[in-house]
């Protein structure tokens, strides 16, 4: 009671009837990137006809995730990325990077960017180019030197550091691109086709680097045509088509609803039974000494399982095969074209 009296003495009289809050609601941190109904319209320079490259895109990127921007050519991925980088301005809508307009140079201070098919000053060597990039970020000379050396080593370019960039292959240029994107230890990486021009080892190395960056808390926005890699790397993806977002969500979430078929593993199967199953429209294939029967729907699965059990055939395994991101992407685009989405 004395505590209540003490509290009431501390609080102003006009608050006497109001219950005190004992905990403050947590303030949500700013999303790293927020696009709000962004539209970009160009005019054809010859015909002056307007062309909408990005049509009402809204996206939010949270910190520490790898976000994939997918879509066919002309979907608006690069146009969206250019607006995020301040290379072009939205015709309508807003873009904020940690609450700042991308046009503000400070918004790009902790941003790393790898352009598609990058082209750098080919009269410079790799080390000279990274030195230039470091100067633009305001990084001190000794720090830039140390980071450049470390990055070039990490990306397998240590021996080529002093060669002019004009003598670099496509893959080597791509690696320099990754190095210059990481030089300022960014908290936001924007990568346009990061695997382009890389051999399988190179791709694996870059993927490893991106995973390490994510562990560090870096947010990564990547646009890619190589969907298999996007599937393995990205936490969330957005599928763009005609400048609009068709779908956005986690990779697991997008693919969980898409079970393509069920696979029943069998120890053995008689040729007659296999023929009968094929006659019903299912697939029955021998894999070594075992058999795999593939049925297209859950109802068919129930019916086939019942049949096999009644026939005394031992069921080894039953597994759903989910569609890959590529299959989902193609299906989503096809559905869009048919107007069912």
């Amino acid at each position, binding site marked *: 009671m004395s505590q209540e009296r003490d509290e009431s003495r501390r609080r102003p009289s006009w608050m006497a009837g109001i219950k005190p809050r004992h905990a403050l609601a947590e303030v949500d941190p700013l999303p790293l990137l927020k696009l709000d109904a962004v539209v970009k319209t*160009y005019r054809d320079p010859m015909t002056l006809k307007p062309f909408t490259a990005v049509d009402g895109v809204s996206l939010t990127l949270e910190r520490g995730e790898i976000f994939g921007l997918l879509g066919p050519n002309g979907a608006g991925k690069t146009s969206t990325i*250019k607006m995020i*980088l*301040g*290379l*072009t*301005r939205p015709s309508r809508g807003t873009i904020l990077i940690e609450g700042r307009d991308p046009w503000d*140079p*400070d*918004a*790009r*201070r902790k*941003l790393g*960017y790898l*352009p598609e098919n*990058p*082209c*750098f*000053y080919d*009269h*410079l060597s790799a080390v*000279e180019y990274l030195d*230039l*990039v470091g*100067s*633009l*970020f*305001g990084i001190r000379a000794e720090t830039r030197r140390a980071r450049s050396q470390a990055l070039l080593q990490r990306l397998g370019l240590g021996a080529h550091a002093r060669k002019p960039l004009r003598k670099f292959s496509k893959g080597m240029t791509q690696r320099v*691109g990754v190095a*210059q994107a990481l030089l300022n230890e960014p908290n936001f990486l*924007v990568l346009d086709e990061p695997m382009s021009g890389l051999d399988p080892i190179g791709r694996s190395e870059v993927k490893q680097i991106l995973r390490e960056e994510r562990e560090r808390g870096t947010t990564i926005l990547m646009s890619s045509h190589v969907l298999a890699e996007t599937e393995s790397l990205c936490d969330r993806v957005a599928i763009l088509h005609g400048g609009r977002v068709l779908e956005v969500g986690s990779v697991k979430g997008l693919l969980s609803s898409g079970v393509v078929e069920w696979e029943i593993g069998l120890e053995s199967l008689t040729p007659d039974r296999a023929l009968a199953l094929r006659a019903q429209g299912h697939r029955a294939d021998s894999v070594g000494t075992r058999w795999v029967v593939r049925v297209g729907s859950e109802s068919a699965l129930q019916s086939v399982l019942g049949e096999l059990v009644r026939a005394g055939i031992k069921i080894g395994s039953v597994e759903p095969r989910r569609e890959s991101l590529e299959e989902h992407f193609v299906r989503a685009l096809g559905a869009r074209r048919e107007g069912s989405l």
Partner: protein
Amino acid sequence: MTRTLAIAQNTLREVARERVVLVLALFGLMLLMGSQVLSPLALGEGRKVVIDFGLAGSSFLATILCVFLGSSLLHKELERRTVYAVLAKPIRREEFLLGKFLGLWVTAAMLLGGMAVILLAVVTVAYHDTPWQILGAVGLNLVELGIVTAVVVFFSSFTTPALTAFFAVAATVAGHFAEDLRYFASQGTPGIRAMVEAAYWMLPHLDLFNARGLVVHGASVGVERLLYAFSYGLLYVIGMLILAGTIFRRREFR
């Protein structure tokens, strides 16, 4: 400023490594040596001929470098898309443009300065007297080069290399005729007069920077003239670069 200087240093490296610069420097050297050959034909005016040709040649070559290399400087960045990776860094567009201007101007200045030093050496050795007064003319020429470079950067911020070179040359030539244009326009209709008056204020007035005639006859460039020329040049260059920066700031890179 660090960012601007980084771009300037890169531009200097890029331009200086162009073969054209070497060709221009060699040409300048040949011109100086050649004028020495002509001097016996000049009936005692050999020293004047060497200094004249040296000053005129170095000024002309440095101007050529500014106009023709400068006009493609920005366009090359856009063609090769090297500008994307740079402008995605925390650098303002105006800083980028200023860096380009400084790099180009310093390269032209180095060509001009180098030729001036060689000219001084050639005249000293051949005529046993050092024409120090040519440094005044060279100083004015440097400011003139700054103006030409600013005009080139202005046009290149929004048009193609060919048009940039054309407009830059046209502006420079028209700048020499500016007073005459104004005089002729004063005889015309009010509309023509207003248009020409507007053009008159925009055109670079390069007559202030031509002291070649003075120094070749042994006179020095007065301090008053140097101050006026420097002030005019600085104000004009700043005005042009602000205009170029304003236009470049609005440019979109599709």
